[in-house]
């Protein structure tokens, strides 16, 4: 039990290599191995999360070498949410892939890379020092490049290469920031840095902060560093894009939260950054939604919508430093959880539509809903939720983010975002609901109940989250309290 924080990293990474090995020796049991790795990782993650929720925080020091020499892992109730999300994402994506893809798609390294990616993301969540943070972020980058270019089509290689170039810059900025922190404080342990950071000159502190915001801003797609994202998601395909947008992006946002409140003590030492972040968030929301409105490719449209939703979460973060800490962080957490489920549900149900129409262009999806009403109903429920139509969970997360703002402008930006996003989802809706497809659709391949169930359950949970928003909100406030140090008390 006490080894849980390290197990959440070790299990999937060992599992990833095990999957590769099984693929070589016994390809027939590969699916079982993938499922076993995902489920065991899910179990470990959930156990760790619940342990952290009951006895926060959970510290783990491998090899009993205490910081500053040794490294430490730390799980508290703030990270618990992300551990649960990763468990949902890993198990959900594997179950979906089991249900949706034919045996041909099971060749190659996708399954192994997915397991490794989730291991790396879990590492980012549990790590308590900057050194490990850098290592896990880079590991996640390598896995992401592999996943983006896995289809071995020429355009996916290009997208992978572009992402690699951009990620190299992001990694260099992160390493640069770690370097500056180390040279200024003499340690990379997050808790020790937090104790010494006030001695650092303000200018240097500002440079570190800027480097970290840009580094993670690239990763989660903050405007204007988001340009790689639609292309990469399009190349990666819907299943992987669901993982990257639904769960990967959230972990980078987690890292930003953790760094700003933990080692950098930004709300205390540099509160001037938060209005700047607020402006960036508003720009991100508007640009993301407008670009999505202009897009005529479904995957790219969803990718740009995910850029915009990164903006909503950033808006919550900005308000947390500026106005009221716990409520705003809780709102951002609510939106993180809701968006993870909504976006993966959207992308994965889009997978069915795309494989039916054999194209991801929206105009080719005429009459798709008549062929698969259940999946498209799930898509529409998730779309209503993500646009923020009451009484879904997506509405309440936006509502809480809006309530946390100190001024009217961000609220109006959120409101405008809802109108624009309703515009592009409704446009897709009228296309898929249209009568008589212009050309006969492909013979419907049998879709298993499993993959349909995953998208339906995700969309259903988000829709139902609106009903349970009261208890959920108080849970998120507790989680936020463990980040801001108030312990969840008002």
């Amino acid at each position, binding site marked *: 039990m006490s080894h849980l924080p390290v197990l959440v990293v070790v299990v999937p990474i060992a599992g990833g290599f095990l999957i590769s090995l099984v693929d070589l020796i016994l390809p027939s049991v590969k699916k079982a191995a993938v499922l076993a790795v995902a489920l065991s990782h899910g179990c470990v993650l959930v156990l760790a999360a619940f342990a952290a929720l009951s006895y926060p925080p959970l510290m783990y020091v491998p090899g009993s070498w205490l910081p500053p020499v040794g490294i430490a892992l730390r799980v508290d109730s703030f990270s618990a949410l992300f551990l649960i999300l990763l468990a949902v994402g890993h198990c959900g994506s594997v179950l979906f892939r089991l249900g949706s893809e034919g045996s041909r798609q099971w060749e190659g390294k996708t399954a192994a890379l997915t397991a490794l990616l989730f291991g790396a993301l879990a590492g980012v969540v549990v790590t308590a020092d900057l050194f490990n943070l850098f290592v896990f972020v880079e590991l996640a980058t390598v896995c992401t490049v592999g996943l983006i270019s896995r289809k071995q089509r020429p355009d996916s290689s290009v997208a992978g*290469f*572009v992402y690699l*170039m*951009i990620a190299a*810059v*992001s990694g260099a*900025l992160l390493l640069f920031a770690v370097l500056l922190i180390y040279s200024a404080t003499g340690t990379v342990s997050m808790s020790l840095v937090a104790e010494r950071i006030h001695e650092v000159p*303000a*200018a240097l*502190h*500002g*440079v570190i*902060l*800027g*480097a970290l*915001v*840009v580094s993670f*801003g*690239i990763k989660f797609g903050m405007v*204007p*560093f988001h*340009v*790689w994202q*639609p*292309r990469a998601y399009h190349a990666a395909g819907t299943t992987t894009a669901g993982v990257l947008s639904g769960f990967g992006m959230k972990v980078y946002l987690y890292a930003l939260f953790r760094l700003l409140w933990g080692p950098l003590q930004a709300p205390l030492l*540099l509160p*001037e*950054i938060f*209005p*700047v972040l607020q402006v960036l968030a508003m720009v991100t929301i508007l640009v993301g939604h*407008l*670009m999505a*409105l*202009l897009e005529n490719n479904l995957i790219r449209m969803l990718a740009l919508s995910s850029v915009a939703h990164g903006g909503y979460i950033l808006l919550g973060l900005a308000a947390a430093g500026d106005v009221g800490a716990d409520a705003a962080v809780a709102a951002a957490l609510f939106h993180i959880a809701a968006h993870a489920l909504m976006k993966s549900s959207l992308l994965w149900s889009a997978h069915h539509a795309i494989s039916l129409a054999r194209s991801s262009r929206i105009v080719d999806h005429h009459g798709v809903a008549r062929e698969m009403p259940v999946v498209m109903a799930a898509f529409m429920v998730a779309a*209503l939720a993500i*646009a923020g*139509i*009451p*009484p879904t969970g997506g509405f309440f997360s936006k*509502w809480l983010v*809006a*309530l946390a*703002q100190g001024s*009217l402008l961000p*609220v*109006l930006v*959120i*409101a*405008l975002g*809802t*109108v624009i996003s*309703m*515009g592009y989802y*409704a*446009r897709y809706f*009228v296309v898929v*609901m*249209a*009568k008589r497809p212009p050309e006969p659709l492909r013979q419907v391949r049998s879709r298993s109940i499993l993959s349909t169930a995953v998208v339906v359950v995700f969309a259903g949970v988000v829709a139902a989250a609106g009903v349970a928003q009261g208890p959920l909100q108080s849970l998120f406030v507790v989680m936020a309290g463990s980040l801001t140090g108030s312990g969840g008390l008002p």
Partner: protein
Amino acid sequence: MIPGGIEAGVFLVFAGLGTSLVVLLVAAGARGPAAAGAVHVAGGILAILAQDLMTLLIGWEVLTFSAFILIRDDGGRRHRGVALRYLITHVGAAVLYFAAMVVQVNETGSLAVQVLVPAAQPLMVLAVLIKTATIPLHTWLVRSYPSTDTLVTPLLSVFTTKVGVVTAARLLRFAPGGYPILALLGGVTAVVAVVYALQQHNARRLLAYHIVSQVGYMIAGIGLAAVETTPDAAAVTAGLFHLVTHTLYKALLLLVAAEAVRHAGHEDLTGMPGLRFRRPALLLCALVGALAISGAPFTSGHASKYLLKGVSQGSPVVNGLLTAASVGTGLSFIKFIYLIFFNRVDAAVGAAVTTGTTPAGGPPSIRDRAVILSILGTAAVTLFIGFFPGSVPGVPAGGYHALDASLGALAPLGVSAILWLLLRRRLTRQHHRPRRPRSTPMISVLTRLGRRMRVPARSLQELGPQIQIFMILAGFSALVLLILQVS
């Protein structure tokens, strides 16, 4: 929980009329629209029963999405465009509501339905103006309502704008500097929409403009509640009573129009064959509706307009606007009745305009019987309210049928009749090219701008990797400089 006072009357109309119109759709065999219509009715009832702002917003959204389904209908290209515009307009209204709600909760900490804090009022006013199709935000209504099935239009006319009026009655008291802007907007809308209506030749588009105009009356009444000289409750009661009466006679008129369209096979009033006395019951019911909307004595419309006139005594501008609108309304409905029942169309033109759907004749189907039954029912209720206005919950009794009140109502109608004699030719001239209302200039400018922006925006989205990296570095430098500047 059923609300008290005049809102109970609104609830009864929403529930009763909504249900019967859905039953009508079922009887007509339109299963899909009937299901969406049932949801639409449920949304309206949810809105009127709402005890807090959140539930009211949910009611708005349920109405919006079910109406979107109803307007989208069979998914034809034109319907799709109209339905999309409808949806975007109303989501726009809902997000303004959302923003107002955020302001309200931040200031008071409560979601209760009450008059909003002053900071939230302008946002909510804008939301309500969109929702109630106040000119110049009325285009969504006149484009969408006439483009649906003839039996769906009455259902749509019952809820969306009326829920906007109810919202205004509950939340808005907007008179910055003691100047009743909302009431003036309502009065101007009532007049301008009538002027538009007089130019229409399409049966349902004419009625749609009259919805805009009549909702203007209600907004005028409710807007007057913000003026200190007017008793709050009286103004709200007058506005909502007009909502009750108008909803009933407008549904009646739209059903009459549906019958006329079925006989003619098309919607051009100037090309209608002239039913005369072939359908005496229909003629009587149409007269009941037309007299009610014109505000002739002993009709429901007269009763509610009488109350409105009472509350607008303190504001001569609003009073004058409403009287002018009454003149126009009377004129417009003389034309409506004349063209449907007494017009003599040249045989050649009539044949040219008529396109062959099933003409009347032969045994009436279940659909026809159900339509006739609904027409008779709504006409009966309209008559009843006309004779006994005090029977509607919350409405003060007495005074409606007094001689001076009746004469006051007849005066504008007399002007209408004189105008009719003067303008008859111009108003009933045949038009071979039906005019479609243009969309709001702002929306069309935005659409055009969007189309033009598409290419540059796409190319922005396709920047090469090195330019992206350059942007990242530039962004990093700018951010650091900014942080250093502010700290």
